């Protein structure tokens, strides 16, 4: 595996592609496509996080949807739950003095609504998710293979049941009316006036995450992760603290899911329990596989494209089936990922016409 690929040319290509897409959509008068693209880019962040965990460290998680939902619901709950009734309580006044309480008028009856500031809710969402990931990851990651998959699936289903069954969290309807998240003049919000701006915010966040994860996997930690993927016992014997490292990566991937969940909730102005369904988690798994497992750029490109098509309704009633077929097809036809498999086929094809030169396979 070529780990020393220069990243800057690729980043420039991503940025250029993002700009070209925006300009051509604006020129074609199809600016509304940007809304689904923005959402797709946020989902791609979850997929990159899972790619780190699954592709690099070799640990399956079917709980990413749950982490996404925990992040989104925390943000949604804190920024919509009216705390006006707590005025006068010591802790509330203290929070108010710190400037983390924002007020707005209720749209319908002009009553005062006091909630936690969105930026603080965003931070709390990530922190809460990381803590939950640590609590659930510590015992789960001691399990291997099928057992780990089942444990994370069970955790995801528990979260799903809780979200659907809790009236305080809107039960089956979820939470709506979530305000935008604005920091220093930039606002993550679904208002059509800031659509183009939000498209670039999403790309900026995604590219920042990509750089971060690239640096991570090319560091000492990344090499240790790949060692765990190949053989946990061998990695352990070479002095890698495998339980600690696996837990850290699990927490990073959960944090990224929560971050995407929180941002997307602000962008969509709401969140529903379907985000935590097993289908969503499986979809992330399919996207990681389609991106080529241990391939962060692949994950970003493929999931942005596929999620965009899915959100545009291209797959019609076969939406879930498409992702199921992707899972089967990748494993059956291209277990190394579609890009590397394509390369293998092309090499084989070329070698047919260049006698004497062996077809070179990609290292597994």
């Amino acid at each position, binding site marked *: 595996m070529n780990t020393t690929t220069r990243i800057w040319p690729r980043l420039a290509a991503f940025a250029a592609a993002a700009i070209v897409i925006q300009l051509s959509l604006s020129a074609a008068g199809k600016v509304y496509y940007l809304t689904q693209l923005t959402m797709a880019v946020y989902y791609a962040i979850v997929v990159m996080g899972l790619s780190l965990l699954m592709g690099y460290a070799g640990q399956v998680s079917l709980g990413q949807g749950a982490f996404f939902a925990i992040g989104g619901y925390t943000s949604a709950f804190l920024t919509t739950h009216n705390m006006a009734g707590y005025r006068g309580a010591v802790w509330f006044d203290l929070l108010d003095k710190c400037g983390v309480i924002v007020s707005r008028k209720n749209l319908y009856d002009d009553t005062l609504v006091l909630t936690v500031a969105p930026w603080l809710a965003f931070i709390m969402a990530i922190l809460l998710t990381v803590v939950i990931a640590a609590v659930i990851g510590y015992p789960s990651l001691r399990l*291997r293979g*099928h057992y780990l998959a089942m444990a994370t*699936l069970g955790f995801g289903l528990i979260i799903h049941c809780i979200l659907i069954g809790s009236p305080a969290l809107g039960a089956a309807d979820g939470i709506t009316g979530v305000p935008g998240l604005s920091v220093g003049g930039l606002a993550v919000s679904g208002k059509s006036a800031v659509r183009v701006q939000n498209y670039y915010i999403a790309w900026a966040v995604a590219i920042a995450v990509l750089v971060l994860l690239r640096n991570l996997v090319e560091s000492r930690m990344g090499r240790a992760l790949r060692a765990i993927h190949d053989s946990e016992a061998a990695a352990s014997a070479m002095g890698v603290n495998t*339980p600690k490292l696996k837990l850290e990566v699990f927490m990073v991937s959960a944090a990224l899911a929560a971050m995407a969940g929180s941002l997307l909730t602000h962008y969509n102005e709401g969140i529903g329990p379907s985000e935590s369904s097993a289908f969503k988690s*499986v979809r992330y798994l399919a996207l990681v596989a389609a991106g080529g497992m241990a391939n962060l750029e692949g994950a970003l490109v493929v999931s942005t494209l596929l999620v965009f098509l899915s959100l545009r309704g291209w797959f019609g009633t*076969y939406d879930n*089936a498409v992702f199921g*077929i992707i*899972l089967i097809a990748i494993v059956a036809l291209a277990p190394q990922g579609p890009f590397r498999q394509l390369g293998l086929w092309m090499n084989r094809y070329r070698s047919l016409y260049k006698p004497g030169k062996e077809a070179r396979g990609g290292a597994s």
Partner: protein
Amino acid sequence: MVQALQYFFSGVTVGSVYAIVAIGFNIIYSATGVLNFAQGEFVMLGGMVAITLASFLPVPVAVAVAVAIVTLFGCGLELVFFRRLRSHSVLHMIIITIGLSIVIQELALHVWDEKVRSLPYFTGNEASSVKLVGAALSPQVIWVLGTAGVVVMLLQLFYKRTLYGRAMRACSSNPEAAMLVGINTGNMRTAAFGLSAGLGALAGCVISPISMTHYEMGPGLAIKGFAAAILGGLGNPMAAVAGGLIVGLIEAFSVSVIPSAFKDVAAFAILLAMLFLRPHGLFGCPSGVSVREV
């Protein structure tokens, strides 16, 4: 008291279905090392096919044909997907069974739409009831319990007494040695898939009049069946029966303590607790089971 008895019977009823699903997990896992995430789909398919056939065939024939069809379907899955992929990693196996689970559900959605269906009651109807030590039971409950009991006994006989069953056990305990004595291990694996699918389909038929058949019922059943299998200890089909009954009973009695919206949480919490504390199961021994790292 009567209420507790009612809970008890409802727990035993769903528990015996979980038990059959758990046995299905065990059969495939011990023969192939694959944990089949699509196990619940066999149950759904069994119910759906039988319901379709029952519209023009008598119910017993419809059930028999449905079980046969799903058995063949299970064999087909092994032949098409798993036989070629034996060398693949656990990660790939997990991914492919999850993919199959989704594709089968989506196929069912397009073939049978999203309506909730059910087979007619095997005897009597939804109003008829049987009094058993003070609790009122639907006659279908007797059918479910009877079927589960017969299945477990026949399976035990099959594994212990028949040549084929012994060969299958030999395959799971040591495939190389089994091959050396002339057992066709590949065919045994196919047979294991078929057997597991057939059992699941049978469970899907007998439970259909009570708990209905729906294209999305598979994953929930699969994970509860897996909880039962883990509770008993994976690789031990008979302990899975005990596991299934325990999960069913806890679920039934949990309704009296927590809101019924959280009923499923109880079963999933047991699964997590077992995985974290005793992944080798209540009856298994820790040594020789390598489910944990470190």
